[in-house]
């Protein structure tokens, strides 16, 4: 015989048990991710903000807390506008030409041909990503060497009769950093788009063919609509990745000639680590973090990622 009070107690215990279970699950499943985010994002951001309000310089000593670094950012640093303009060209150039468009072309063409050949070409395009960055850039340095020994000059001079060797590192440095980064970036889009194309139900292509759709019509009306989510993801992800990465540029052009290829992240590096202005570097880096967060949020909004991440209302089989 249980009384109403007992039943209530059991129910409360049940609720309490469920709440405890929810808490445990939260800790087990989200704990590691939260810990990593705090350790590798929140804590560095706090350190960066703190350093940006100091005069930390080459001997790593702080003698005062100051807003001097922000005054420099807004008032005295005349390179900054040029650097921001270049970063825009570099990020959107690489993204628009290679990471999305070329990645998409590679995915569509390698899925349209025989499986073996498709896999082979995808493998070839993955090689730059698999090579160590120093090795990859060494090959580039040889390819664009301004002497007759450079690969591109050998081809142009011997096959096309060019008189004097070209110096692409001086005459076209921005194009070079876009191409060298794009060759690596394209492979990520290629893999994600290939997986997405493989996921499109086969019968849709057959139905389109029966309806008389040509290759371009099939791409336009079947393939591309199915790739909306992957394209949005690759765009946002690669934008953020291009904004903060500079190792290939540093290795290839060292940010030069002059400041021609010094993108924002490399500028922060040059200021902080080549000139020893750590406080100023931290202030500049803070803007990079802010820009990154804004770009991510804008992308989320623009591509309507929330809706894309929702559970599909109709299952397509």
């Amino acid at each position, binding site marked *: 015989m249980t009384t109403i009070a007992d039943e209530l107690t059991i129910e409360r215990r049940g609720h309490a048990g469920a709440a405890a279970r929810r808490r445990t699950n939260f800790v087990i499943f989200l704990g590691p991710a939260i810990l990593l985010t705090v350790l590798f994002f929140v804590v560095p951001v706090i350190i960066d903000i703190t350093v940006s309000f100091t005069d930390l310089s*080459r*001997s*790593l*000593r702080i003698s005062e807390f100051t807003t001097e670094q922000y005054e*420099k950012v807004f008032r*005295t*640093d*005349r*390179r900054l506008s040029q650097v921001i303009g270049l970063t825009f060209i570099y990020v959107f150039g690489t993204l628009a030409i290679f990471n999305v468009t070329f990645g998409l072309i590679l995915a569509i063409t390698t899925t349209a041909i025989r499986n073996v050949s498709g896999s082979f070409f995808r493998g070839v395009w993955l090689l730059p990503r698999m090579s160590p960055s120093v090795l990859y850039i060494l090959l580039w340095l040889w390819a664009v060497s*301004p*002497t007759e020994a450079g690969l591109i000059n050998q081809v142009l001079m011997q096959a096309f009769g060019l008189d004097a060797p070209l*110096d692409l*590192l*001086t005459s076209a440095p921005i194009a070079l950093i876009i191409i060298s980064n794009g060759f690596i970036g394209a492979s990520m889009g290629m893999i994600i788009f290939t997986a997405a194309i493989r996921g499109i139900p086969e019968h849709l292509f057959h139905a389109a063919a029966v309806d008389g759709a040509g290759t371009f019509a099939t791409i336009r009306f079947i393939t591309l609509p199915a790739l909306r989510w992957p394209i949005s993801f690759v765009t946002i992800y690669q934008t953020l990745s291009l904004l903060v990465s500079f190792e290939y540029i540093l290795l290839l*052009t060292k940010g*030069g*000639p*002059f*400041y*021609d290829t010094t993108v924002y992240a490399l500028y922060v590096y040059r200021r902080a680590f*080549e*000139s*020893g*202005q750590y406080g*100023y570097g931290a202030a500049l880096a803070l803007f990079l973090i802010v820009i990154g967060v804004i770009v991510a949020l804008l992308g989320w909004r623009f591509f309507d990622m929330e809706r894309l991440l929702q559970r599909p209302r109709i299952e397509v089989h």
Partner: protein
Amino acid sequence: MKACRGWEEIRMFHWKIGTAALLSAAFAAGSAALLAATPLVAQETVKLELWSRQDPSGPLRPGNVIKATERLNKELEAEGSPKRVEVAVRESPAKGFDDDALQLLKVFGVGEGPDMFIAAHEWICAFQEDGFALKLDDYIAKYPQHFGTIFPSLWSSAKCPDGTYAIPQDAEARMFFYNKKLLREAGYDAAFVDAMPERALSGDLTLDEVLEIAKQVVDKTKAQYGVLHRPNKGPDYIMVFQAYGSDFVDPTTGKLLLERDKLAAAFGWFERGVKEGVIPANNTAMEFDALRKEFYTGNAAFFMYGIWDLGSVAFPTYGLPQEEKAFFADWGWIAGPAPQKGGSPVSLTHPIVYVIAADTKEPELAVRLLGHASAADLNTDHAVTTTHLGIKPEQLEDPRYAKAWPLARATELLKITKFLPNNSQFGDLNGIIYAGIQGIESGRLSAEQAADFVIEEASSSLEDVIVK
């Protein structure tokens, strides 16, 4: 019974004597052993750490300090001191002395600094300003046997505003090397080519004439380049700025000084060089080794660099003649020419120095150790093997030194030589000047814009810059 007792007593007496003798012998032996062992037990090893950049152009800079430990330890032994010195070298892989100094400042900043370090002289005040370098005036006066004969002119490269903070380790000379063979091929007669060093020293040969000669070489011979300079931040190209009157430091205040017109005039020389096709537009993008190869294999008329490169690279790697007469038949060097006829020529010397950390526990021993490392014979070992100039007059009498003709010949340039300024921010300013040269050569800036660029950058990122 009595007799028996007497015998017992005698035996007892003997035993006592024997025991006492044995014990005394043991005590005596023990004391002797203890006495003998005392110096060993009390000997104290002092470990001193020396920071040195891995530098093939001067392996004996740290090497001589290690050799000096033996001399110092003998001296300590003779003095009856229980201390013995041991040196551990911490090698840094930095590409140049600028990178090395920046790295070392951080190392000191986190409290991991060495007891002694090797640096380019223009950086010492950066260490002094942050309290990392030991003031040496009293020690130098205390040990005249070690430091008394070092050339007085070299000491000025070891000074900061309030005293001496370093010990000169070597000196050298920067110049414009030139390829006589190419000049002759371009139509200049041998007498003209051979007279160039004299003309440069007297102020008759100008910087613009060098561009003209280089242009003739590029136009009339197979050589591709007229004038080459280093492809990274460093001292040589500063000669051109010094020729046009920039010394970068205000003599009265010791602060950095930038004079716009003088900067623009020096940048103008680089601009004219590139426009004439004499200085390559990609000079700053070239690899150092590739650039050297261009000059030493006869593809460039002039190369702005330093005397030590002959011993370090030109002779061993590119097989330039090591015999004086044979060398000067096809190669030579001139001082940095004057900007206009009758003006002053320039040469630059870039001493490397030993510095002692302010917080070393054994400053006295460190000073004495570096004193021994600066001994004439050891310094001559460094000088003759790496073609650097010595630091003491007695080295000039060493037959090995006299035999090393590049040293004797380069010493002529010391009459007109200058130093880089010992200002703690000069290293940073030099980086900005180098970026200005890069801007001009790659066609991104005009000479006027480059001067403005240097002034803007320096004013915004450095402190206390005087602009005129």
